[in-house]
């Protein structure tokens, strides 16, 4: 890896503040997870509520636009509901979940908090196929049915979940996959299906499932000429973990992507030298909600 040739990407503004709120702990062990999350992977732990509170307070002066929560499975965090309630006092919140462990009392509290807030609360539910046959080989036995029950719970509480699927099918099958996803969601009462397709990132567990990036799959200085750098997550995001602040939610298992102990230490440029940076460059704005617009 020749980091001296990697383009440096400057943070233009901290638009998206991410929280690795459940660390690498997850109740599932998906074969395509780009950070190898599992019930036993505690290399990153739960983020204390106090850390979230401190960062939310800091985010005001930094002019942050959106707050995102990921893991692991965020709802394994005992204080996930109060964390989201608190965040909605500051701005819009999005939580990336596998949808399998919701409790109605949490969703009741969150629906009330969103109603009282100026801001939207978005649930992004990961489901990677439109049926047990297509989803479960990737996410585990029984996970399709469990996640779809979670979607129903969200709909019953008045939420409009965004189903997030990593592209594990050939490009030419995409129109059919999208149609079948919509049909499956409508069939369970989700009559306004929202779908976000993400490219697979060949790191973490996915590297073992398919293949990693080869050395030619890197962003170089020439590729950045005329390129809209705001398409890159690191141009407008940082992620807070229990072990410091990382450059983006994708690279938390790369030690060189740790930028500092505190948020204010981590607003420095970053050399985009990883294979995953190549996927981010190719597809652009892969982590943001569609309502952000314009990449950032």
């Amino acid at each position: 890896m020749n980091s001296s040739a990697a383009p440096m990407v400057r943070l233009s503004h901290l638009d998206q503040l991410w929280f690795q709120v459940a660390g690498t702990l997850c109740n599932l062990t998906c074969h395509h997870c780009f950070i190898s999350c599992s019930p036993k992977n505690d290399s990153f732990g739960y983020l204390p509520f106090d850390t979230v509170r401190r960062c939310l307070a800091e985010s005001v002066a930094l002019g942050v636009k959106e707050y995102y929560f990921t893991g692991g499975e965020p709802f394994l965090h005992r204080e996930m509901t109060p964390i989201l309630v608190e965040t909605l006092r500051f701005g819009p919140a999005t939580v990336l979940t596998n949808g399998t462990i919701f409790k109605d009392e949490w969703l009741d509290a969150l629906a009330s908090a969103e109603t009282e807030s100026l801001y939207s609360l978005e649930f992004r539910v990961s489901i990677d196929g439109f049926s047990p046959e297509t989803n479960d080989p990737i996410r585990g036995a029984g996970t399709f049915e469990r996640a779809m029950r979670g979607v129903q719970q969200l709909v019953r509480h008045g939420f409009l979940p965004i189903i997030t699927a990593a592209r594990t099918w050939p490009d030419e099958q995409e129109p059919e996959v999208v149609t079948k996803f919509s049909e499956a969601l409508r069939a369970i009462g989700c009559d306004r299906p929202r779908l976000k397709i993400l490219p697979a990132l060949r790191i973490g567990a996915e590297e073992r499932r398919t293949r990693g990036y080869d050395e030619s799959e890197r962003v170089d200085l020439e590729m950045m000429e005329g390129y809209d750098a705001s398409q890159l997550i690191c141009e407008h995001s940082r992620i807070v973990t229990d072990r410091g602040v990382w450059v983006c939610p994708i690279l938390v298992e790369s030690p060189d992507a740790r930028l500092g102990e505190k948020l204010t230490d981590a607003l420095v440029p970053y050399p985009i030298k990883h294979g995953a940076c190549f996927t981010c460059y190719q597809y652009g704005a892969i982590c943001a909600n569609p309502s952000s617009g314009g990449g950032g």
Partner: protein
Amino acid sequence: MTTRIACFGGIYSNYLGLAAALRDARRRGVDAIYCLGDLGAFGPHPDRVFPLLADHGVECLQGNYDDSVGNGLDDCQCGYTDPRDNHFARISYEYTLNNTSNENRRRLRTLPKQIRMELGPLRVCLCHGSPRKVNEFLWESTTPTHFLDHLLDDVSADVVLATHTGIRWQRELKSGRRFVNVGVLGRPENDGRTNVWYTLIEHSPAAGLTVEFVPIEYDFGRLAREMKAEGLPPEFQQTIESGWWTTCLEILPSKERRRGKY
């Protein structure tokens, strides 16, 4: 001194709505009229808005659609990822591009991306999406107050006026500063009503800054008939006739999406 202005965005070729808004604004005696971009799209006969804008001396900004049509780009730069939204966006863009004259495309190319003006003592920044990005969506439910403070600080403005999302809103900030999304004339607001909106903004020493959103009724039935005659999708006509958005739904945050029908 300019103290009272009319602002609108997103005409989207709705020349009938534009004519009605211009009549209303003139009747109210405004000092100036501004269009914050996206002259064409969605509706029929994109060339018909240009003489109206010229006759009324409307100062126009370049929206993302104007940049695309003016420069013959591949798409409208709305940034859709949903296949259905992309399908309709392509139809709208190809129709608008093919039916905008070369002369008007040249006009679109030369429009400024931002206008700075003074409204009484207030420094006003007029933009399309946001002061920093032409196609940034600033929705009410996804735009924190401290983020707006940052945007206004960044451009040293007391007031920022923007459009692009298609739904009007405003928020008062610290020290009497204001952000206003002035809404659009091109299609209704996804609320089941057929009217469209423009915005009056006024400053007086006594009242300070006042913002009034003005509903505009127009002959939407005629617009829908002309859209049909031009071969535009029935889904677009349905939006004009019902007041509910039927396309471009992907970009709505959940609060705004829930207020709609689809």
